């Protein structure tokens, strides 16, 4: 058993990521990303393919979605996405969780709403 007859990666993953081999720690396969508007002309072929997936997307896409759609290794996509986040082309809505209101405050609001009803 020698696996597939043909190598699926004619372009090797390290070339796609421009030699980067580490993704950001906060980019995981299940991380959902949304695209920021901005020019993509300066991007390389693969980042642009990633960005093109987002055109017309209402919500976000998970890293695993992107990997499956582009048929790229998930780790490669994580690195590509990390670079795109660094350059501001993608953002992670989950990252905003740091600034979510405290649960005490939410409890307070809930109690106020109930008292109104």
């Amino acid at each position, binding site marked *: 058993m*020698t*696996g*597939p*007859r*043909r*190598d*699926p*990666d*004619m*372009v*090797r*993953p*390290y*070339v*796609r990521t*421009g*030699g980067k*081999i*580490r*993704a950001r720690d906060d980019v*995981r*396969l*299940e991380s959902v990303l949304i695209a920021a508007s901005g020019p993509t002309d300066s991007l*390389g*072929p693969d980042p*642009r*393919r990633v960005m*093109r*997936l*987002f*055109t*017309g*997307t*209402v*919500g*976000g*896409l*998970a*890293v*695993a*979605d992107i*990997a*499956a*759609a*582009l*048929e790229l*290794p*998930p*780790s*490669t996509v994580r690195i590509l996405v990390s670079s795109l986040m660094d350059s501001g082309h993608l953002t992670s809505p989950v990252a905003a969780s740091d600034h979510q209101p405290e649960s005490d405050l939410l409890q307070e609001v809930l109690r106020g709403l109930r008292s109104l009803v």
Partner: protein
Amino acid sequence: MTELVLTGAVLLTLAGAGAAWYFRRKRDQARHEAELLRRHADRLTLQLLAAEQCVGHLTATVIPAAVGTAQDGDGAQATLMVPPNLEGTPLAERLRTLPGAVAAAVEDVRARERAAAAQSVEQLRQDAERQIAQARHESVGVARAAVRGFANNVVARAARLGRAVSQGVRRHISDEAYATLVEIDHLAQQMLLTASGYAVLAGDKLSRRWPATAMTDIVRAAMGRIEGYERIKHPEMGSISVEGRAVEAVVHALAVLLDNALRYSPPAASVHVSLEQGHHACFLIVDDAGLRMDDERLLWASDVMSGEQRDDITRLGAHPQTGLRVASLLAENYGFRVELTAPNIYQGTRAMIVLPKNLLITPESGGPAVASVPSVPAARPEPAAVPQAPAAAPLPSGAHEAIPAAPAAPAAHQAPQAPPATPTVGQTPPATTASGLTVRRRNPALAAQRRTAPPPAPAGPGRPAIAAAWAEGTRRGRLDNPSATPAEHDAANRTTPGTGHDAAHEEGH
């Protein structure tokens, strides 16, 4: 009586006197003759002595001199001093002609000797040359076979290693595993480049086959095979693709040229790759900002690339030279050209691959469209939407052959209106519901694959393994998506077992 006696006595006396006179005269005459004979004998003796001396002189000095003259070849004949007492004799004449005759004879003998010697030398030289040529031929054959066997072995194993890494980077998602696999992969790819180069020099064809590939991916594939690819800058190169049969050769040749450009330019300088489209050909141009190749080196390079001995495995130089030989051999075998010029706009060297139109697929030429960037329709947040995206794009990229579409290809030809209950497994057309939605069938092959797959590791909520499994699931889902487009079908045909010979070749060594 007395008278008679007297008369008798007188007569006797007279007779005696006469006889006496006669004999006296006879004696004088004999003495004279004897004198003459003695003188003649003396003269002959002297002449004989002189002749002896002359012959002695002849053998001691004149003939060696004549031989020497013939040897020197200056034509000046040694003269023989004939003693005066032999003057006028035939012997003198003969002796005079002797040195010339000796010299001529010696000259003649020598000429014959020289001719014979030259002939035998020529014969020996020809024999030696024949033997050298034969030995050379044999040694080239032996070296070729050895290099071919070795190179093919390394190529086959490195290619397998590359495929194993491709599987590995999809299977393992930890950062450490990825970093290690990628490092191994980069080394394996360089090994593959070197080994395939030697296989080509040993007279083999390149063993790896690819589908038609967009130019950008050709450049990036070449970048993956060399060290220092981060310094290579290239723009997106549009929709031109290279025919499948030439892809590996062009990638290999480009990798060699890029490697050369990186080697001969400063460590911080970029190497620029660009594409120019001519009327009859496309030009892949590699510009380095390194040391300009001087005329001597350019001449050397063009010699290497056009030399008749370039495929002689026993006359290889150092690695760059090997690379250029391989590039030129590939160019010849696959019908493109490689050229080097200097200086370029960066005062460095420009290397060029000239690809004729028959190796290219342009969008207007009607060949199977190979998009570098797929036109993926708007993906919705629902996970199910994403897997459909590649189905709409004929080929996700040049690098991605249509293997996923292959199982769908037979079904694509069948009429979709066929009864959904057809029991033929694997040949059933896609069933549709009344509203036209596709009814998904169970693929027994995939089911078996799932059964034989190792049980997934227990995954907690939010673990990356779950997302990976999800991605794998959506990929499998696309595998039995029956709505194959004609382009997909074409691509599938290229990868179906009917053409598996190429790929099998890859395994065969």
